């Protein structure tokens, strides 16, 4: 991937947004850099921001590596990204309201019905229900990669409960604490309004039967969940209760939270729990994490659930290929951000192409996430490629393939000094009464030289993401 775009350079020139950072980097002696890196690690350890990795054993409280070299966007670069992200978030929500309602996009023949109706994330139990303000996905995490000075692609959408926003906020906090001068020398737009916007978004979708100032809670599966830190962090910032299923109960037409002062009615639940677990009466009967009867209260307008049950049907990797079509269909606009060209192994022609070119492609499971169960052709051994060939042939509909993109790289501190490493970007778009986006997001970096897998579960790290003011 020697041809990858390095965001700090344009040919031999330093790109203007990185000018200050380049001299900052040059001026920093190696021992100061090591000292700062140790300081950052100690701070992260102290505040307890850690990330457990599924299925890998080892230390569940492993620190996610933090890289001190910020990633920078200019004001105009961001303006375009922001328009593209908001456009996408709006179209995804329009799609969700439609497929659980009149299904115009299916009637119009713009998306195959089987992709929606036989999708395991389609929730029959919410058909005919329009959530408050017509929003299913209140926090849309859109993963974006860059391949050139003006080339951005959306890699995937996360409409359920995207995680990682705490890293966006903590990375900024860390940088401001360690390098206050940088924030005087550069005009960086703040991201610290995020929790205010999140709370405003959640209160704006209070249920139909709520006639008072809504009470918001965050529902977590518990402290063993890999994102538990983030759940408690967001609850603290917003000043709302962090609850588990057993702290809530249904009585009559409403949901209540047990408190030391007696039961308190809950109006909006920001759940960080999959649909399957939220109500054993409606979904998995063996779930101990949910609230029995929650769905009846929800559907009769007594409580709001964010994201709304059923939102997952908009974000699997097969539906992804139709998002540009959704934008045209619902908004009558052309997509501002492009999709990565995608082959669907369910289609015979596509399958043939994928099998012939496995060594060059990235192959993903339709319902997979977190970088698990994927093949990066050019980075794999012959054996790995052949193993994947068998998996695809056994269940073609479960796989999609994309070209291996030359992800952009940004300067990153490594043992030998500074070197380019590949990055992606996950901004968090908030959708309620309004569509809001703080200028920034989570930049994930593949710390291994040449690696294209940025997932924190696969050894990726994070960086502060700057959006410069005009």
């Amino acid at each position, binding site marked *: 991937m020697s041809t990858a775009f390095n965001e700090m350079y344009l040919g031999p020139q330093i790109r203007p947004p990185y000018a200050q950072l380049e001299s900052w980097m040059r001026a920093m002696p190696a021992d100061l850099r090591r000292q700062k890196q140790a300081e950052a690690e100690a701070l992260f350890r102290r505040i307890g921001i850690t990330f457990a990795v599924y299925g890998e054993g080892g230390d569940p409280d492993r620190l996610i590596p933090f890289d001190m070299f910020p990633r920078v966007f200019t004001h105009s670069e961001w303006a375009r990204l922001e328009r593209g992200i908001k456009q996408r978030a709006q179209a995804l929500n329009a799609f969700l309201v439609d497929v659980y309602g009149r299904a115009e996009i299916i009637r119009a023949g713009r998306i195959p019905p*089987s992709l929606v109706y*036989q999708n395991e994330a389609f929730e029959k*139990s919410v058909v005919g229900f329009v959530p408050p303000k017509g929003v299913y996905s209140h926090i849309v995490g859109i993963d974006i990669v860059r391949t050139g000075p003006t080339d951005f692609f959306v890699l995937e959408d996360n409409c359920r409960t995207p995680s990682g926003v705490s890293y966006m906020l903590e990375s900024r906090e860390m940088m401001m604490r360690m390098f206050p001068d940088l924030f005087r020398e550069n005009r960086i737009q703040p991201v610290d309004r995020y929790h205010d916007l999140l709370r405003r978004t959640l209160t704006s979708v209070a249920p139909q039967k709520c006639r008072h100032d809504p009470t918001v809670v965050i529902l977590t599966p518990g402290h063993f969940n890999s994102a538990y830190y983030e759940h408690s962090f967001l609850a603290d910032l917003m000043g709302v209760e962090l609850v588990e299923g057993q702290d809530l109960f249904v*009585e009559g037409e409403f949901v209540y939270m047990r408190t030391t002062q007696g039961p308190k009615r809950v109006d909006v639940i920001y759940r960080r729990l999959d649909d399957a677990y939220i109500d054993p009466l*409606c979904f998995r009967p063996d779930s101990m994490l949910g609230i029995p*009867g929650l769905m009846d209260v929800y*559907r*009769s*307008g*007594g409580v709001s659930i964010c994201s709304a049950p059923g939102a997952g049907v908009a974000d699997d990797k097969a539906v992804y290929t139709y998002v540009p079509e959704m934008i045209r269909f619902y908004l009558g606009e052309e997509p501002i951000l492009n999709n990565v060209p995608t082959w669907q192994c369910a289609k015979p022609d596509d399958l043939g192409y994928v099998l012939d070119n496995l060594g060059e492609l990235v192959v993903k499971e339709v319902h997979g996430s977190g970088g698990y169960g994927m093949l990066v052709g050019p980075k794999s051994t012959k054996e790995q490629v052949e193993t994947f060939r068998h998996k695809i042939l056994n269940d073609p509909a479960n796989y999609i393939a994309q070209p291996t993109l030359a992800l952009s790289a940004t300067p990153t501190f490594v043992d030998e000094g500074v070197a380019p490493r590949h990055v992606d970007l996950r901004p968090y778009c908030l959708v309620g009464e309004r569509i809001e986006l703080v200028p920034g997001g989570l930049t994930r970096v593949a710390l291994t030289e040449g690696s294209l897998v940025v997932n924190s579960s696969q050894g990726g790290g994070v960086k502060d993401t700057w959006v410069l003011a005009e």
Partner: protein
Amino acid sequence: MLLMIDHLTLYRYETPARGVVQSHRLMPSTCAGQEVVAWEVTVSGGVKGGGFRDGAGDWVQGWSVTGPVSEIAVQVRGKVATSDTAGVLRGHRETISPEVYLVPTAATALTGALPTLAKAGQGQATVLGAAHELSCAVTQAVAYQPGTTHAHTTAAEALALGAGVCQDHAHVLCAVARANQIPARYVSGYLSSDAQGAGHEAAHAWAELYIVGLGWVGFDPANACCPDARYVRLGSGLDSRDAAPIRGSARSTGAEWLDVTVAVQAMQQ
């Protein structure tokens, strides 16, 4: 026909439950061929929760009981005037696409001898013909024999046993219909136990298959017929759990016992 229904479900808890929450599908469907004359559902000590009509057209009603409580009685009493629609569900408002009912569930997974049985649906000129053939095949393959299966028996297991009750018949028919790309669903309701109905459960279940042009059509392989004026339809789902008239959860540490009695009496009008 006028059907009088008396349906009592009794829950007993070994250690008193701190609270009970239930979700009911206990209202007769609003459709041609059945008209509610009187209907009442009571839950002892219960508070009525939210109610709504879901996308399948069923009225769903939440209930909660604040504990401690060691016994709960759910009592359904009503009168429904019925007429024969030859099994065709008409005048029923629903918004879920029939294609949703092509998806298998754990109870209706296409395993064991089910794919072979499903071949009974092949070679028919019409989908309706295939549906009748499949229903007949299920009647022949699974004998009515109470006590051989239980609430969690799957379609494939019942077929392997060659015996079961109405729940098993309905599961097997759903599985083989879906295998033929015919949308199918599980229906719960009541069946009057008059005339030669002896031995059949009054709390009954059958299947509906979607026939393009006709809509949803009921098939009752347990009785080798299509539902007629002896039937009262309550609700539907992908399988028995999904269509259950009562789903409940008790906050209790001990054992739980369930006792159901149903009486359906027919009066000629």
